[in-house]
């Protein structure tokens, strides 16, 4: 039958197929899972200082160690609000504060799975039948200086987002999220809370 389709119809079908293939290659019918190993630590659990000080906060999102300005812009309001409500500081600003306390937060996205795009592309080419999973790692590093000349104390937390494409089982170590946006925001909240908790327990944090 297809041999007798008008040339334009054949063209249209082929174009649709190309678009569909490409979309599958790009989205791969993806589902997003936040790793279960790092959980959100409630604010009440932090070791709060007797008299909290004001702090200047600098947040930076990195991709493979390189500043990602757009992701920084996207996540900064959430991260700053979380630190503000942590109870660990009396006031939070993005400019120098009285006393000179400075908190740097770097959230670095590092790939845990080699050839992620290759896997996604194969899933797309097979219309999802050859499912695949890729994982993105995140390392949150906090560095706190109580005063400009004081020694820095630091804390680190790790997390991961697993992306499953096509026909593949959900990862046993993941909680399914409705969207990538929700996955990123949930991961960020959990990893920042973990790093903040570790920082609050450092004997040098006063």
């Amino acid at each position, binding site marked *: 039958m297809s041999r007798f389709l008008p040339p334009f119809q054949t063209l249209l079908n082929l174009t649709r197929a*190309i678009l569909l293939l490409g979309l599958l290659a790009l989205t791969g019918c993806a589902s997003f899972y936040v790793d279960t190993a790092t959980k959100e630590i409630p604010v009440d659990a932090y070791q709060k200082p007797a008299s909290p000080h004001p702090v200047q906060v600098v947040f930076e999102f990195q991709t493979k160690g390189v500043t990602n300005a*757009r992701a920084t812009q996207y996540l900064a309001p959430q991260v700053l609000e979380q630190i503000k409500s942590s109870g660990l500081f009396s006031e939070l600003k993005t400019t120098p504060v009285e006393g000179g306390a400075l908190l740097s937060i770097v959230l670095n996205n590092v790939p845990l799975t080699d050839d992620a795009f290759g896997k996604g592309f194969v899933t797309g080419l097979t219309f999802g039948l050859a499912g695949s999973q890729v994982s993105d790692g995140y390392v949150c590093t906090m560095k706190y200086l109580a005063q400009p000349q004081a020694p820095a104390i630091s804390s680190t937390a790790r997390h991961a987002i697993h992306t499953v494409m096509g026909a593949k089982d959900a990862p046993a170590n993941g909680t399914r999220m409705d969207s990538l946006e929700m996955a990123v925001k949930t991961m960020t909240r959990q990893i920042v809370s973990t790093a903040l908790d570790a920082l609050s327990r450092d004997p040098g944090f006063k």
Partner: protein
Amino acid sequence: MIVAGARSDPGRRCLSALAGLAFAALTGCAQLPLGEPAASFGNIEKAGRSGTAPVAVGSFRLDPGAAPGIDTGLSVRSNVVVSPIQGSFAQYLRQTLITDLQAAGLYDAASPSEISGFLTDSTLDVPLDTGHASLGARFVVVRLGKAVYDKELNVSASWPSSFVGMEAIPSGVNQYGALYHTLIGKLLDDLDYQAANPK
């Protein structure tokens, strides 16, 4: 023979065009604005060590000797990287400098010392093997009407670039965007700048 056949077949030509269109739609062909400048912790530390006085920030513009296009957009695999600050990379550099100086407590709009800048270089190349980006500016510090510092500074970066546009383009944009803080860090580290603008 195949080429001749394709030329003679309007359907195939149209298919090629549509396939190209579909690919373009999928890969973006879009304007990619850099993220708004955010303070760099590294530059706050550099500023603290620099021993320099607070400064005002004057005008920034394209250097008269530079190609006009470098201020307005950078073409990357059919996408165009643009500045979110007045569509000008010179203005993006100015805003990044203000942001870093403010975060370091070294910005004072009423200071008798003022930094101005001229964008001299801005490139981003994302081929299939090694990506490359560069950024340059001539910084001029004027104090009480007298130029006390006038120097061109340049920075660059190279990185492994993927053949997959979805990976290579954002990576290139990040590498290029990071150069703005690197360039300001170089200014803060510059001994001539430190000598020209002491506390």
